[in-house]
């Protein structure tokens, strides 16, 4: 019951805002959104604490059940989504982008959140797919209508590219899920875990379809080119949701479907997948070294960070899975922090071209500068901040993979990923050197206003989360441990 309420509340409020309440003014709309998001977070905590679940027939003709619940794998992501959902709703006090009615904008945010929550709570493969797809349309509206007002053509193109690219991925995944469900005779993810007695050939077919489909969402190099334009164009709240929640749906799907359901098939693909992950780490890092647009740069750094997650998943050990899940959550918080910040800078400056000289943040706006440096430090994997554990454990996992993985390939990937970590330091400090530090500012030049009000609180909350996750990685790892043992042990 609580689970259904958790999903219904943001969905209902969001749908009303985009339909009946479309004409609502900014103030009532954002108040409604914030209250809904806060209640949703409360419900999410309740669901996790109570271990609430729901399971009843939904489409009996297809054997699809209305089955939602959480376990160790989904708990951190559910809480992350609800938390980010609240912050995104509160961000409406900072900035509501032009482009249409504010109520529609806020409603779309809530619908995205509802879809993501449903994705993480779904215990039925078909339900998972439906929830996965629900997110696309509101996200398309967010990018296409409320995106960067400076360039309508780029906005339309980015939105279309996002929808079409990820829809192609979802279609591939749909085929995979249909093949899986048809051959296994059940769509229940719990029953599917461990291979459900499928032969190797079928497993391989299913795994190929699922991995390729989900890799688009993660995104795995070379299927990543939809991400930078979408991020660059999307409004701040949209970028945050995209990086912190939508990408996580991809990795979560990888854990739930190919890794858990068709382990043998996934095992065959794992070496190639690991290579793609390691290449992603270096690829993203290298592009970041020369990228001029700060928002695009953060997007490419996401590609690099997700490369670590992919590599850890491919390693096939419990450590790898733990590293992947932890890295997922860590990247969610860190990228949310960076996108709120960079979105704020874009709002202040009009663009975030790194080639344009600007007064150094450390001189003009020390609070903003502090958070930026914290975010960059987390991004380069500084211990004590969120990024570190996921990445160092990913390298470990690749160095000591599961027995059935080709050791040499994965060790090489570990080395490549470690090199990528040094690249992360290079591009993070490149940004710090351009944006954070600089000469004493000219008193005649306009100063960048420092963060204040709601934006300050949002940044403070995210910064705190980055530190807490970094200092106490056990918070996440102890939650995921049993479920991870279940997923890997079931093989």
């Amino acid at each position, binding site marked *: 019951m609580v689970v259904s309420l958790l999903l219904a509340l943001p969905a209902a409020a969001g749908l009303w805002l985009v339909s009946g309440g479309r004409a609502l003014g900014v103030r009532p709309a954002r108040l409604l959104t914030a209250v809904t998001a806060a209640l949703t977070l409360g419900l999410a905590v309740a669901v996790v604490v109570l271990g609430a679940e729901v399971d009843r027939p939904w489409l009996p003709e297809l054997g699809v059940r209305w089955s939602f619940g959480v376990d160790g794998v989904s708990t951190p992501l559910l809480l992350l989504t609800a938390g980010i959902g609240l912050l995104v709703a509160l961000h409406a006090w900072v900035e509501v982008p032009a482009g249409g009615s504010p109520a529609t904008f806020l409603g779309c945010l809530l619908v995205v959140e509802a879809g993501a929550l449903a994705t993480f709570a779904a215990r039925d493969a078909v339900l998972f797919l439906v929830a996965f797809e629900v997110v696309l349309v509101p996200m398309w509206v967010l990018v296409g209508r409320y995106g960067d007002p400076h360039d309508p053509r780029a906005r339309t193109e980015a939105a279309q*590219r996002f929808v*079409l*690219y990820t829809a192609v991925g979802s279609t591939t995944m749909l085929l995979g899920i249909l093949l899986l469900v048809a051959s296994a005779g059940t769509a229940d993810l719990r029953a599917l875990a461990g291979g459900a007695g499928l032969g190797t050939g079928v497993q391989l077919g299913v795994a190929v379809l699922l991995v390729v489909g989900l890799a688009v969402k993660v995104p795995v*190099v070379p299927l*990543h*080119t*939809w991400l930078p334009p979408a991020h660059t164009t999307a409004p701040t709240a949209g970028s945050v949701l995209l990086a912190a929640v939508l990408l996580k749906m991809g990795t979560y799907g990888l854990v739930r479907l190919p890794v858990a359901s068709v382990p043998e098939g996934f095992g065959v693909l794992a070496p190639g997948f690991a290579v793609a992950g390691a290449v992603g780490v270096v*690829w993203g890092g*290298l*592009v970041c*070294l*020369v*990228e001029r647009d700060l928002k695009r740069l953060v997007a490419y750094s996401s590609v690099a960070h997700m490369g670590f997650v992919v590599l850890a998943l491919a390693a096939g*050990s*419990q*450590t*790898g*899975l*733990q*590293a992947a899940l932890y890295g997922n959550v860590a990247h969610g918080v860190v990228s949310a922090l960076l996108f709120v910040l960079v979105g704020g800078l874009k709002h202040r400056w009009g663009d975030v071209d790194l080639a344009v000289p600007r007064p*150094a943040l*450390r*001189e003009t706006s020390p609070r903003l500068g502090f958070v930026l440096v914290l975010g960059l*430090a987390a991004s380069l*994997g*500084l*211990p*004590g901040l969120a990024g*570190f*554990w996921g990445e*160092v*454990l990913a*390298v*470990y*996992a690749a*160095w*000591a993979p599961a027995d059935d993985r080709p050791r040499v390939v994965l060790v090489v990937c570990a*080395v490549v990923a*470690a090199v990528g*970590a*040094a*690249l992360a*330091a*290079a591009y993070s*400090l490149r940004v710090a*050197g351009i944006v*954070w*530090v*600089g*000469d*004493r500012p000219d008193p005649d030049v306009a100063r960048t206003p420092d963060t204040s009000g709601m934006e300050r609180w949002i940044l403070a909350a995210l910064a705190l989360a980055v530190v807490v996750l970094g200092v*106490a*990685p*056990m918070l996440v*790892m*102890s939650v995921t*441990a049993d479920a*991870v*043992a279940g997923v*890997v042990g079931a093989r």
Partner: protein
Amino acid sequence: MTPWLVVGLPALAAVLGVAVRRDDRLAGAVAVGAAAVTLLLAGIAWGLAGRPTTVSPGPRLRAGELLVPLDLLSDPTRAALATVVVLVALAVQVYSTWYLATDDRYGQFAATVSLFTSAMLLVVHSGDLLLTVVGWEVMGWCSYLLVGHWSRRPSARRAALKAFLVTRVADIGFVLGVVGLAAGAGTTSLAAVLAAWDRPDACVDAALADGSTVGAALTACEAPDARVRALLLVLLVIGVLGKSAQVPFQDWLADAMEGPTPASALIHAATMVAAGTVVLASVYPVFADSPTARWFLGLAVSVTMLLGALLAFAQSDLKRMLAWSTVSQVAVMLAGVAAAPAEAGPDAGLFHLWAHALFKSLLFLAVGWAALAAGGTLAVALRGAAGAAPVLRVAFAAGFLSLAGVPLVVGGQSKEHVLATVWDGAVAVDGPGLLVLVALVLTSAVTAAYSTRGYLVLTVHTRQRPSAGRVPVAVTVVLWLLVGLSVLGGLVVVTGAFRLAPISLLWLLLTTLVVGVGVAVALRGGLDRDPADVLARRLVPVADRGLGADALYRRLVARPVLRLARVVAFVDTEVVDAYVRGSAVATRATGWAGERLHRGERPSAGVGLVLGAVVVLGGLGVVLWS
């Protein structure tokens, strides 16, 4: 008494310091107070520490198959090192309340120094390789902040970037080495890692005595693969070479002089550059078994110690002279690890760490004061700057005596121990002992020469009374304290904190001789002239540029990587994404073609249909028939 307290308190002070950073007095009180209390705690912990090593359990992180216990260890050696670290940190904190009194970012500086101290203490007490990595990387980050503290200066920004990137590139090796060692044990616990990679000597010897072949004996005893172990240790050593500014990573440290002098004192004396010695000492039982790793380290430190000493001699800037002397002295510490015989252990190197921390912090703090009085750190500007205060004359005398390795003062004692240990290692043949020994003797002479030069320039040459304004009593007290310790610090050997073999008087004579040669060479131009002008005039411009290593880094690493990055960015948009754009174009073209087909006149459409059917049927026929 748990070491967690010693490690945690400065970390707490850092957090608190960031919170109160806008109020200089409060920030200073937090920083100095925390350092003083930590020193007290570290002292008590040292008093209580005993052998064997005690384990303070950590929070235990279970990451799937890998166990990360996050334990801390304490024994008298670690406690002594922790104490000297905190002592230097306290001196630096007290000194910077004066030195940076007018700095608008003093609060951040003090908090960063606290964090730096905590990270170093973590490395010293770490009983878990991953915890070592944590302290190691946090120190690197703090060095970025401290070196770049005066970030309004482009040179400071560049130096900070360089310091972090060079060490981080070397850390690729460090992280992989740690990961590999941990993978062999299934845990990052130091004790378990050592046990897993140790050569089971007793078992192997027994098997050999029974007449089995070496290979069979190793297999029977499940000995770890020696080649893998050597590779991992070499990777670890690469990381150490980076952080300790050894060849080929040496060039970041001299540029790091762009940081405020107290930061240099901290980085050079007790933290960061010395951390590598601590780490290698903690894995010593395994390291000692691997001749490959020993040779690798021995070669690097032999080159470094001599090169560093020669460059130090020819610097036109005395602060950079101290920086190059650090490079050389850290190599001496590492020599005590690289070339020590297995049964002697790494304690001679650690003792030199202890000694170096005392006299190098003294020298840096004194030079900072003298430079304020003289208005610059160039040797020309600093002539006779010690006249600014009586304590400076004594400080330079004690500091340079120790640095030169004159017997009986702490620096001389520790260097004799390193020499004696390396001699034992050279006699035992297996390892780089002989090479290191030769380098060590030559370095000692050059060190004595540049110490003489520093002392001459700062103290003997006279000038009109320089003044650094009013200096608080606390700073003077700190310097006197360090002077006392730089002379008498060697008494630490009686506490048994370092397990050192007694050494013969012969070594005392030998070091006296070597130092004498160095001093004599330096004095060839008389007392009134700068020895560098007399002996190495041509070398000075080259040495000031660090032999052009910076250009080499740029040409060999930075530029190729950037070039590759440009290629990758191009491929990303023009090749990878071209397929995506291509598919859009193809879809549109297909749509257009379909539309045309449907709009077209019936006969042509009919012909097209018939043709299509023929092709399909033909194809089917071929497939079925074959």
